[in-house]
């Protein structure tokens, strides 16, 4: 048996072993997951806010699901970019929940979702500014130790930039990841939606991100409004161009867990699992190409 050196301990792998396609666990199909046959998913992902300080059926069901499937956690209300420091009571409750669920990392959104003591329950975009880069990066540095596990930031959709930007969205993200050890939860649908709404190139955007930091990819459906604006609804099937962008991205990141998010108009579990299977096929083909590139470049 070899004893890990101190440098081994410091350099814990940023990328965990978990891979494959998972599904956001929703209450609409919770009982089917509990009582049905094994689901062909690599993991389930939950939002801890739905379980914090809660007793009864749902935490008990989650405990049973955790015995059969890996669980990832994805928060909704950290408000990492808000002026006010993240709520201490919330962080303590979150820490307790993460200790119980033992996810390999915890993620939340690069946004603000509180204003002072008030919680908005929506992901609002941050101004792309150096002031916000510094605030987010400082908090991301602290969160790893406060939560006791790696912390990942997700790129969000924004329908309008709030005020006069100092930076582009890509520069904003790049600087945050330069100044913090945060991992990246790359939402490919969000990149696509932003590219259409703001006229940017989604591939150039992704290529500019620190892809070695990607610990997880999210994909979801969006809706096109009558005025042409794309809305990140999580309420439809994933659009073909997003699937193509996912494939292109996986060729560059290599194997990372992929999550299918469906929060609205949630269909039957069977329909979601069929979409998971499509994603699995896309991932396998993309990862085979990734392996080929890797082999030929060595």
């Amino acid at each position, binding site marked *: 048996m070899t004893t890990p050196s101190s440098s081994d301990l410091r350099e814990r792998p940023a990328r965990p072993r978990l891979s494959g396609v998972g599904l956001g666990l929703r209450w609409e199909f919770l009982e089917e997951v509990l009582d049905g046959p094994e689901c062909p998913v690599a993991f389930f992902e939950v939002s801890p*806010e739905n379980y914090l300080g809660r007793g*009864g059926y749902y935490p008990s069901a989650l405990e049973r699901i955790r015995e059969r499937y890996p669980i990832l956690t994805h928060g909704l209300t950290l408000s990492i970019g808000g*002026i006010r420091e993240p709520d201490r009571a919330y962080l303590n409750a979150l820490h307790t929940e993460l200790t119980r669920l033992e996810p390999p990392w915890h993620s939340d959104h690069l946004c603000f979702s509180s*204003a002072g003591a008030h*919680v*908005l329950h929506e992901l609002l975009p941050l101004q792309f500014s150096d002031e*916000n880069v510094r605030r987010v990066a400082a908090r991301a540095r602290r969160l790893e130790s406060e939560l006791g596990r790696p912390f990942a930031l997700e790129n969000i959709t924004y329908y309008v930039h*709030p005020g006069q930007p100092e930076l582009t969205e890509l520069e904003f993200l790049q600087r945050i990841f330069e100044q913090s050890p945060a991992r990246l939860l790359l939402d490919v649908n969000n990149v696509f939606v932003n590219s259409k709404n703001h006229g940017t190139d989604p591939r150039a955007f992704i290529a500019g991100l620190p892809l070695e930091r990607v610990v997880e990819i999210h994909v979801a459906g969006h809706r096109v409004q009558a005025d042409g604006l794309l809305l990140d609804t999580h309420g439809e099937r994933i659009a073909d161009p997003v699937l193509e962008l996912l494939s292109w991205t996986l060729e560059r990141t290599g194997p990372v867990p992929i999550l299918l998010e469906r929060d609205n108009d949630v269909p039957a579990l069977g329909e979601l699992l069929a979409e998971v299977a499509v994603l699995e096929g896309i991932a396998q083909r993309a990862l085979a190409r990734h392996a080929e590139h890797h082999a030929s470049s060595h």
Partner: protein
Amino acid sequence: MQAAIESALADLVFGPEIAQGDAAGIASWLARNGVQEADARALSRDFPRLQLYRRLARGNLQKALEDTLPRTLFRLGPLFESYFDEFLRVMPPVSHCLRDLTPSFLSFALPRFRGDERVPAYLVDLARHEALQVEVASLLGQQKSHVAAELSLDEGVLFIDAARLVDYEWAVHRLPEDESSNVVPERLAVSLLVYRSPEHEVRYLELGPFAAGLLAALLTCGVSLRTALSQGALRAGRPLDDELLTRAARLLSELATRGALLGKSPPASPEPPIPCPRSTILP
């Protein structure tokens, strides 16, 4: 400046609606939130699209209330909108958990319902009843140091945490579950024990005056069984005779079978003056 932008967007979400073409309203909104000139110009230009965030955030909050208070909101009809507007303006959410929005909304709305002749009088009880179901379903249960043994007259009785006693003036618990029903409940004073079964189902037990008095004393005041029996008899307006004692034994045994009563515990506090307050959740 993130501070000003944050303040402005929160105001946009929770504050009074500003019409798209209302240039003076937009200017006033930007000024009261201290938005600097360059940002103000951009926010004014993008105002129509910014309003999407008002719609999204308020939609999430409204859905949370619709999920927990479906029958109340249906019966409230268009009045809900004005209550919801005022609630968000006066008491924006402070909890990270959406399920906390329901008790927060009711703490705002119920006193106002009582003074609003447009709101049916029974709606206060129906709203409390719907909220109680959500509360009991999700109450956290703590480990108890109870003794699973025969009860003693001189000791208290320990119940599960997920149990509440409630008094209504209207028999709202007998209303159909159909969310679009307009059936009016019977005006009838009722007491209910609401508890969560070991299978996580929320159960209701309608109580007569003796049982209500007995359980209020035990569950809410933590007095000894002997004192609680006296309080039950007092509430029933009867002497504590063999018949009441038999009924008490049957009730407590039934609650133990249903998993709501755990065993005996020492009285948690000195004996309170008689009568012990009748327990309710929410105002």
